[in-house]
Protein backbone atom coordinates (compact mmCIF):
# COMPACT_ATOMS: atom_id res chain seq x y z
CA UNK A 1 0.00 0.00 0.00
CA UNK A 2 1.49 3.33 -1.07
CA UNK A 3 2.03 5.92 1.61
CA UNK A 4 1.46 9.33 0.15
CA UNK A 5 2.96 12.24 1.99
CA UNK A 6 4.15 15.48 0.53
CA UNK A 7 6.70 15.81 3.33
CA UNK A 8 8.32 12.46 2.52
CA UNK A 9 8.34 13.26 -1.20
CA UNK A 10 9.97 16.63 -0.58
CA UNK A 11 12.52 15.16 1.80
CA UNK A 12 13.32 12.44 -0.72
CA UNK A 13 13.75 15.09 -3.42
CA UNK A 14 16.10 17.01 -1.12
CA UNK A 15 18.26 13.96 -0.47
CA UNK A 16 18.24 13.20 -4.16
CA UNK A 17 19.46 16.72 -4.84
CA UNK A 18 22.23 16.43 -2.24
CA UNK A 19 23.22 13.09 -3.71
CA UNK A 20 23.42 14.53 -7.21
CA UNK A 21 25.30 17.58 -6.03
CA UNK A 22 27.82 15.39 -4.22
CA UNK A 23 28.43 13.35 -7.36
CA UNK A 24 29.00 16.52 -9.38
CA UNK A 25 31.39 17.87 -6.74
CA UNK A 26 33.23 14.56 -6.65
CA UNK A 27 33.82 14.87 -10.37
CA UNK A 28 34.77 18.56 -10.23
CA UNK A 29 37.03 18.39 -7.18
CA UNK A 30 39.98 16.69 -8.89
CA UNK A 31 39.65 19.17 -11.76
CA UNK A 32 39.68 22.16 -9.37
CA UNK A 33 42.60 20.68 -7.45
CA UNK A 34 44.66 20.56 -10.63
CA UNK A 35 43.83 24.12 -11.67
CA UNK A 36 46.85 26.44 -11.57
CA UNK A 37 46.89 29.63 -9.56
CA UNK A 38 44.80 28.63 -6.51
CA UNK A 39 46.08 29.17 -2.99
CA UNK A 40 47.30 26.33 -0.85
CA UNK A 41 45.04 26.51 2.17
CA UNK A 42 45.35 24.33 5.27
CA UNK A 43 43.47 25.09 8.51
CA UNK A 44 44.34 24.09 12.07
CA UNK A 45 48.08 23.90 11.65
CA UNK A 46 49.56 23.28 15.13
CA UNK A 47 52.33 25.72 16.01
CA UNK A 48 54.22 27.14 18.93
CA UNK A 49 56.48 30.14 19.40
CA UNK A 50 60.18 29.69 20.00
CA UNK A 51 61.41 30.11 23.57
CA UNK A 52 61.57 33.82 24.20
CA UNK A 53 63.58 35.59 26.87
CA UNK A 54 61.39 38.32 28.22
CA UNK A 55 62.13 41.15 30.57
CA UNK A 56 59.65 42.24 33.17
CA UNK A 57 58.33 45.67 33.65
CA UNK A 58 59.34 45.39 37.33
CA UNK A 59 63.15 45.78 37.31
CA UNK A 60 63.74 43.75 40.48
CA UNK A 61 62.24 40.58 39.01
CA UNK A 62 64.49 38.23 37.01
CA UNK A 63 64.17 37.48 33.31
CA UNK A 64 61.94 34.62 32.29
CA UNK A 65 61.86 32.31 29.33
CA UNK A 66 58.39 31.84 27.94
CA UNK A 67 56.92 29.85 25.12
CA UNK A 68 53.36 29.95 23.79
CA UNK A 69 52.16 26.53 22.76
CA UNK A 70 49.02 24.99 21.31
CA UNK A 71 48.57 27.74 18.77
CA UNK A 72 46.78 26.96 15.58
CA UNK A 73 46.44 28.87 12.39
CA UNK A 74 45.56 28.66 8.75
CA UNK A 75 48.52 28.08 6.48
CA UNK A 76 48.09 29.94 3.22
CA UNK A 77 50.50 30.58 0.37
CA UNK A 78 50.63 30.54 -3.41
CA UNK A 79 52.27 27.35 -4.70
CA UNK A 80 55.49 28.19 -6.46
CA UNK A 81 56.97 24.78 -7.26
CA UNK A 82 55.60 21.49 -8.58
CA UNK A 83 56.01 20.05 -5.06
CA UNK A 84 53.91 22.90 -3.65
CA UNK A 85 51.20 22.17 -6.19
CA UNK A 86 51.34 18.46 -5.37
CA UNK A 87 50.87 19.31 -1.69
CA UNK A 88 47.90 21.50 -2.56
CA UNK A 89 46.32 18.60 -4.42
CA UNK A 90 46.78 16.26 -1.46
CA UNK A 91 45.23 18.82 0.94
CA UNK A 92 42.32 19.50 -1.40
CA UNK A 93 41.64 15.96 -2.54
CA UNK A 94 42.13 13.61 0.40
CA UNK A 95 39.83 15.11 3.08
CA UNK A 96 37.52 16.54 0.43
CA UNK A 97 36.94 13.25 -1.37
CA UNK A 98 36.46 11.40 1.91
CA UNK A 99 33.89 13.95 3.08
CA UNK A 100 32.05 13.88 -0.23
CA UNK A 101 31.93 10.09 -0.32
CA UNK A 102 30.53 10.09 3.20
CA UNK A 103 27.92 12.73 2.29
CA UNK A 104 26.94 10.74 -0.79
CA UNK A 105 26.56 7.59 1.31
CA UNK A 106 24.33 9.32 3.86
CA UNK A 107 22.19 11.05 1.23
CA UNK A 108 21.81 7.84 -0.79
CA UNK A 109 20.74 5.77 2.22
CA UNK A 110 18.21 8.37 3.33
CA UNK A 111 16.91 8.72 -0.24
CA UNK A 112 16.34 4.95 -0.37
CA UNK A 113 14.58 4.93 3.00
CA UNK A 114 12.23 7.70 1.82
CA UNK A 115 11.56 5.83 -1.41
CA UNK A 116 10.72 2.66 0.52
CA UNK A 117 8.35 4.61 2.78
CA UNK A 118 6.62 6.10 -0.27
CA UNK A 119 6.11 2.57 -1.59
CA UNK A 120 4.41 1.59 1.66
CA UNK A 121 7.43 -0.16 3.14
CA UNK A 122 7.91 1.48 6.51
CA UNK A 123 8.82 -1.30 8.90
CA UNK A 124 10.66 -3.60 6.57
CA UNK A 125 13.85 -5.61 6.60
CA UNK A 126 15.28 -3.34 3.90
CA UNK A 127 14.79 -0.20 5.98
CA UNK A 128 16.26 -1.87 9.06
CA UNK A 129 19.40 -2.80 7.11
CA UNK A 130 19.63 0.67 5.54
CA UNK A 131 19.41 2.37 8.94
CA UNK A 132 22.03 0.05 10.37
CA UNK A 133 24.34 0.85 7.46
CA UNK A 134 23.74 4.56 8.05
CA UNK A 135 24.58 4.29 11.75
CA UNK A 136 27.76 2.37 11.02
CA UNK A 137 28.74 4.86 8.32
CA UNK A 138 28.34 7.79 10.71
CA UNK A 139 30.41 6.10 13.41
CA UNK A 140 33.14 5.02 11.00
CA UNK A 141 33.40 8.48 9.45
CA UNK A 142 33.58 10.25 12.81
CA UNK A 143 36.78 8.26 13.47
CA UNK A 144 38.08 8.18 9.89
CA UNK A 145 37.85 11.95 9.51
CA UNK A 146 40.19 12.37 12.50
CA UNK A 147 42.69 9.90 11.04
CA UNK A 148 42.58 11.67 7.68
CA UNK A 149 43.05 15.08 9.31
CA UNK A 150 46.04 13.77 11.26
CA UNK A 151 47.61 12.20 8.22
CA UNK A 152 47.19 15.28 6.05
CA UNK A 153 48.35 17.53 8.91
CA UNK A 154 51.49 15.42 9.39
CA UNK A 155 52.10 15.51 5.68
CA UNK A 156 51.88 19.31 5.67
CA UNK A 157 54.10 19.66 8.75
CA UNK A 158 56.75 17.39 7.29
CA UNK A 159 56.65 19.37 4.06
CA UNK A 160 57.10 22.60 5.97
CA UNK A 161 60.04 21.18 7.94
CA UNK A 162 61.67 20.04 4.70
CA UNK A 163 61.10 23.18 2.64
CA UNK A 164 60.77 26.19 4.96
CA UNK A 165 62.58 27.68 7.90
CA UNK A 166 60.95 30.00 10.40
CA UNK A 167 62.47 32.53 12.77
CA UNK A 168 59.45 33.42 14.81
CA UNK A 169 57.55 30.15 14.90
CA UNK A 170 58.31 26.54 15.78
CA UNK A 171 56.73 23.49 14.30
CA UNK A 172 55.77 20.52 16.50
CA UNK A 173 58.47 17.86 16.78
CA UNK A 174 58.70 15.32 13.99
CA UNK A 175 57.40 11.78 14.38
CA UNK A 176 55.08 9.19 12.79
CA UNK A 177 51.68 10.63 12.00
CA UNK A 178 49.85 8.56 14.63
CA UNK A 179 52.13 9.93 17.35
CA UNK A 180 50.87 13.40 16.55
CA UNK A 181 47.51 12.32 17.95
CA UNK A 182 48.62 13.31 21.45
CA UNK A 183 50.16 16.59 20.30
CA UNK A 184 47.15 17.51 18.23
CA UNK A 185 44.47 16.56 20.69
CA UNK A 186 43.47 20.12 21.62
CA UNK A 187 42.98 20.96 17.96
CA UNK A 188 41.61 17.78 16.44
CA UNK A 189 39.01 15.66 18.21
CA UNK A 190 36.54 13.00 17.22
CA UNK A 191 33.31 14.55 16.07
CA UNK A 192 31.22 13.53 19.10
CA UNK A 193 27.98 14.81 17.58
CA UNK A 194 28.39 12.51 14.61
CA UNK A 195 29.35 9.59 16.82
CA UNK A 196 26.30 10.07 19.03
CA UNK A 197 23.98 10.48 16.04
CA UNK A 198 25.43 7.28 14.57
CA UNK A 199 24.64 5.43 17.80
CA UNK A 200 21.13 6.92 17.86
CA UNK A 201 20.54 5.80 14.28
CA UNK A 202 21.61 2.26 15.27
CA UNK A 203 19.05 2.40 18.10
CA UNK A 204 16.45 3.62 15.60
CA UNK A 205 17.25 0.60 13.41
CA UNK A 206 16.44 -1.62 16.41
CA UNK A 207 13.16 0.24 16.90
CA UNK A 208 12.32 -0.41 13.25
CA UNK A 209 13.21 -4.08 13.73
CA UNK A 210 10.74 -4.31 16.62
CA UNK A 211 8.20 -2.49 14.50
CA UNK A 212 8.73 -5.07 11.76
CA UNK A 213 8.10 -7.89 14.23
CA UNK A 214 4.91 -6.25 15.48
CA UNK A 215 3.74 -5.59 11.94
CA UNK A 216 4.30 -9.21 10.96
CA UNK A 217 2.45 -10.39 14.05
CA UNK A 218 -0.45 -8.09 13.26
CA UNK A 219 -0.52 -9.05 9.58
CA UNK A 220 -0.57 -12.74 10.44
CA UNK A 221 -3.14 -12.43 13.22
CA UNK A 222 -6.45 -13.63 11.85
Amino acid at each position, binding site marked *: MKYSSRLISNVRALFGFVRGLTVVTLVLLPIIAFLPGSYLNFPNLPLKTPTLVVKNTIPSEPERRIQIEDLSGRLKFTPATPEDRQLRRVIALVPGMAGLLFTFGVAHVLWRVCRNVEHGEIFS*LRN*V*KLLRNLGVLLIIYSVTSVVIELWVGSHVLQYMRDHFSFNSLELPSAGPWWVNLKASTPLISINMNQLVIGLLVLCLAEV*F*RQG*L*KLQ*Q*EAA*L*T*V
Partner: protein
Amino acid sequence: MPIRLNLDRMMLERRVSLTELAERVDITLANLSILKTNKARAVRFSTLDALCRELKCQPGDLLEFVEGPPEKDPEA
Protein backbone atom coordinates in the same frame (compact mmCIF):
# COMPACT_ATOMS: atom_id res chain seq x y z
CA MET B 1 5.11 -23.81 14.48
CA PRO B 2 4.32 -26.15 17.42
CA ILE B 3 0.62 -25.15 17.48
CA ARG B 4 -1.17 -26.48 14.42
CA LEU B 5 -4.58 -25.54 13.16
CA ASN B 6 -6.30 -28.57 11.66
CA LEU B 7 -8.72 -26.51 9.63
CA ASP B 8 -8.24 -28.50 6.45
CA ARG B 9 -9.12 -31.76 8.21
CA MET B 10 -12.22 -30.27 9.83
CA MET B 11 -13.33 -28.71 6.52
CA LEU B 12 -13.01 -32.13 4.88
CA GLU B 13 -15.09 -33.77 7.62
CA ARG B 14 -17.81 -31.13 7.41
CA ARG B 15 -17.56 -31.01 3.60
CA VAL B 16 -17.17 -27.26 3.44
CA SER B 17 -15.14 -25.45 0.82
CA LEU B 18 -12.75 -22.61 1.65
CA THR B 19 -14.87 -20.04 -0.19
CA GLU B 20 -18.06 -21.10 1.55
CA LEU B 21 -16.45 -21.09 4.99
CA ALA B 22 -14.93 -17.66 4.34
CA GLU B 23 -18.37 -16.27 3.56
CA ARG B 24 -19.98 -17.89 6.59
CA VAL B 25 -17.40 -16.73 9.16
CA ASP B 26 -16.90 -13.34 7.50
CA ILE B 27 -13.14 -13.67 7.00
CA THR B 28 -11.42 -12.92 3.73
CA LEU B 29 -10.34 -15.82 1.59
CA ALA B 30 -6.72 -14.71 1.93
CA ASN B 31 -6.85 -14.78 5.72
CA LEU B 32 -8.62 -18.12 5.79
CA SER B 33 -5.97 -19.47 3.48
CA ILE B 34 -3.31 -18.21 5.92
CA LEU B 35 -5.07 -20.15 8.69
CA LYS B 36 -5.45 -23.27 6.58
CA THR B 37 -1.78 -23.34 5.58
CA ASN B 38 -0.65 -22.73 9.20
CA LYS B 39 1.10 -19.48 8.37
CA ALA B 40 -0.83 -17.50 10.97
CA ARG B 41 1.12 -16.18 13.97
CA ALA B 42 -1.96 -15.66 16.15
CA VAL B 43 -5.70 -16.29 16.09
CA ARG B 44 -8.26 -14.02 17.69
CA PHE B 45 -10.83 -15.59 19.98
CA SER B 46 -13.56 -14.03 17.83
CA THR B 47 -12.20 -15.88 14.80
CA LEU B 48 -11.94 -19.16 16.74
CA ASP B 49 -15.49 -18.61 18.00
CA ALA B 50 -16.80 -18.09 14.45
CA LEU B 51 -14.98 -21.16 13.12
CA CYS B 52 -16.19 -23.42 15.91
CA ARG B 53 -19.77 -22.22 15.40
CA GLU B 54 -19.75 -22.87 11.65
CA LEU B 55 -17.84 -26.15 11.81
CA LYS B 56 -19.78 -27.28 14.89
CA CYS B 57 -16.69 -28.35 16.78
CA GLN B 58 -14.60 -27.55 19.84
CA PRO B 59 -11.42 -25.44 19.82
CA GLY B 60 -9.51 -28.58 20.76
CA ASP B 61 -10.68 -30.19 17.51
CA LEU B 62 -9.07 -27.39 15.55
CA LEU B 63 -5.92 -26.70 17.62
CA GLU B 64 -3.21 -29.27 18.13
CA PHE B 65 0.18 -29.03 19.87
CA VAL B 66 2.98 -30.75 17.97
CA GLU B 67 6.35 -31.37 19.63
CA GLY B 68 9.18 -29.53 17.99
CA PRO B 69 11.58 -26.61 18.33
CA PRO B 70 9.94 -23.22 18.98
CA GLU B 71 9.75 -20.88 16.03
CA LYS B 72 12.66 -18.44 15.76
CA ASP B 73 12.08 -14.70 15.48
CA PRO B 74 12.71 -13.46 11.98
CA GLU B 75 16.23 -12.04 12.17
CA ALA B 76 16.49 -8.61 10.66
